[in-house]
């Protein structure tokens, strides 16, 4: 179910206009907010017709927005070594941190696009030259050795494979793994579960706070909350979405 939620969040952002009209349609059948986010994907008509039934898992269909196929494969391998999938659960690959980075590079992080292009190209060049194959095809132990050397600024002849590049990728891998799923990563709330963060909520009572990581996760994006969506305010309703009356 949460897989579908993730996919829906992507679509809502990527196709705001369609999403709005779909949302208004769904409102007609009593589905808004979180319910909308868990509904299956597909065409507008299929959406409204199938919204009430629990859908099967929908395959992810989406294009990379800025990264090339090779860049994304190498970056995903890199991110997967920073936050690996292991005995402590899934990692950056499963959380789709690279999807977050790809989208951000087309928008808020455009200024980093060049640095990614240059760094990932050097990573490929170095891997091909020293190991005879692409970085993402190397065994994990060899990937780790290259990353370790990068953090030590110990890769001679490849000026951009340095700790600065590593730190940038590390930062953005963390951002993508632990961010609100609205932005394309933290799929299935993998990142928040890893930390024991019980998720965004509009209000927290002392009893809820005191449960810490044992509190049942909210399993929602900030933008599942009706007051923060792009839906226009209903005539006559408060601009605070009614939440101001709750305390």
């Amino acid at each position: 179910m949460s897989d579908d939620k993730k996919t829906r969040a992507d679509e809502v952002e990527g196709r705001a206009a369609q999403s709005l009209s779909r949302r208004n349609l769904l409102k007609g059948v009593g589905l808004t907010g979180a319910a909308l986010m868990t509904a299956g994907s597909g065409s507008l008509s299929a959406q409204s017709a199938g919204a009430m039934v629990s859908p099967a898992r929908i395959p992810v269909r989406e294009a990379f927005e800025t990264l090339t196929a090779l860049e994304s494969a190498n970056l995903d391998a890199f991110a997967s070594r920073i936050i690996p999938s292991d005995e402590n659960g899934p990692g950056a690959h499963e959380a789709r941190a690279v999807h977050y980075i790809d989208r951000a590079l087309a928008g808020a992080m455009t200024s980093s696009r060049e640095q990614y292009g240059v760094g990932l190209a050097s990573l490929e060049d170095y891997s091909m030259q020293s190991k005879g194959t692409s970085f993402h095809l190397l065994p994990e132990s060899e990937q780790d050795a290259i990353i370790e050397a990068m953090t030590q600024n110990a890769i001679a002849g490849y000026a951009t494979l340095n700790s600065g590049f590593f730190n940038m990728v590390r930062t953005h891998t963390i951002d993508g793994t632990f961010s609100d799923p609205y932005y394309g990563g933290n799929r299935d709330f993998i990142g928040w579960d890893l930390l024991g963060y019980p998720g965004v909520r509009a209000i927290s009572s002392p009893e809820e706070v005191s449960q810490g990581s044992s509190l049942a996760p909210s399993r929602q994006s900030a933008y599942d909350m009706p007051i923060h969506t792009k839906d226009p305010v209903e005539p006559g309703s408060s601009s605070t979405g009614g939440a101001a009356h709750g305390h």
Partner: protein
Amino acid sequence: MATELPKTDVVVIGLGAVGGVAVLPLVSGGLNVIGLEAGGWFSTRDFAPDEVRNNLRDWPQQVAKAKNEIPTSRANINFEAAQGGGHPMMNGVGGTSLHYWAQSWRLNPWDFKTVSETTRRYGANRIPVDSTVEDWPFSYQELEPYYDRVEYALGVSGNAGNVNGSKQANGNPFEGPRARAYPMPGLRSSGYTDMMSDAARQLGWTPFQGPAAINSEVYGNRPGCFYHGYCDRGGCHVSAKSSTAVTTIPEAMKSGLLKVVTHARVLKILNDADGRVTGVEYLVGNQVLIQPADAVMLASHTYENSRLLLLSTSRQFPDGLANNSGQVGQHYLSHHQGAPVIALFPKNLNNWYGLPAQGVAIDEWADDNFDHGDLDFIGGGNLWTYTDRKPISAAKMSTFDRVPNWGSKWKAFIRENADRTNVSYIQKTTLPYRGNYLDLDPQVKDKLGFPVIRITAEHRDNEKRIAAFTQDRMEEWYRAAGAVQIVRTGLGGAMGASTHAYGGTRMGNDPTTNVTNAFGFADEAPTLGILGGSVMGTSGARNPTLTAQALAWRTAEHL
């Protein structure tokens, strides 16, 4: 060609934390006020619990005007000043009060009389060499009624420590006397803050919940805090945070005397042949407009207050408005609020929900609350520890040198410890010094071609000694609460651009060392009022906003 508009009584430049307060006493005095604000209106719908938007992409910094005017910064004249990535300014109705932590302290009475009190108690030679610090032109008692008005007009929660000289339980034992209690009790405690309070009592200290411009219960038509955890750089989704956008500005608009003009960028303050200000010139879209007024209240950020004066040149003021004395930009300081201590605890702290203003304060080591006879500094620091944790910043926690910062070992470490760390917040007495100042950058310009402000300033020995001393106290506190490992950070250097920026248009009795008189009006241009941290000559050891707001109310009322 500029279009001249009908004259008004008062123009307020900037409807933020201070301009947004000043409009209320201005309209109460029956004056017609035009408020020019460079940003627009935000609503609760804009304020989602979103760490990417608030803290990574830093929405307050993306506002159109301020992001093109990022100050350059250098430690001293031996360096080339450079623009950093960020800035602390904000455009929008409510300004920084939309997204600030909202800690709303009154300064300690000592902060008003640092020179005379230090001299009386320890001797004149204890004022740091090169400091240009002066006593304020009045005492805490003069400002007390204005603190009171702002606390009630905005809605400030807190536990009084001293009502008319009578000490109160649960409050700050060192605060100056107040006429009455806060309008609301302090924000609630949490398991973590209770643990830290217990530890402080073991050390013989007096912990208390600090004051905040955040409702702890229903106040007027606004609810109490929802404690959802996205207050830091976040606007409030239920308007429990008492920003001027939901308090004094709408209250002033009810009078019909306040006209708000948004997306208005002031280019210049105008003056006549006698040196009196006559209004302002501003830009909306591609239109240049002139708004004549009898008085102008300059209420932008500290950096922009000095900058706009320096850019407002005329025959009467060739070096900038009100700057024939050469004092605009002088006595600048950024609050020393860095150099935190970071603790690791052996158990989860349950800090996933909460806010920076929900914390515990220790004032034993602030101001002159302790004997400095055998110490090599004056002043001190307020120790603050608080609840606030968000997932991305939690994952970027210190590794305490226990693991590398990537890979399976690191992942196991953050899985175990994400909710077991805490970073302190220690605000320290910071003084003005010769050599620390603001001026116009000789090279870097904004998109309209105007120079940005240049910060030349660094912390000196007095601040660094306070930092080292208070880090010791903070470590004691964390250890008493059961912390198993401590990391300390560097003691300070270049001041850089700060949310807590003071000076540049200092207030004082001596017109040769100050820009404004004791009421906040420019010595050289008496109908120009200047509002904000830019008039403050000392920082104290606590957040500046409430003091700047109280001063703004007083200046506005005096007009």
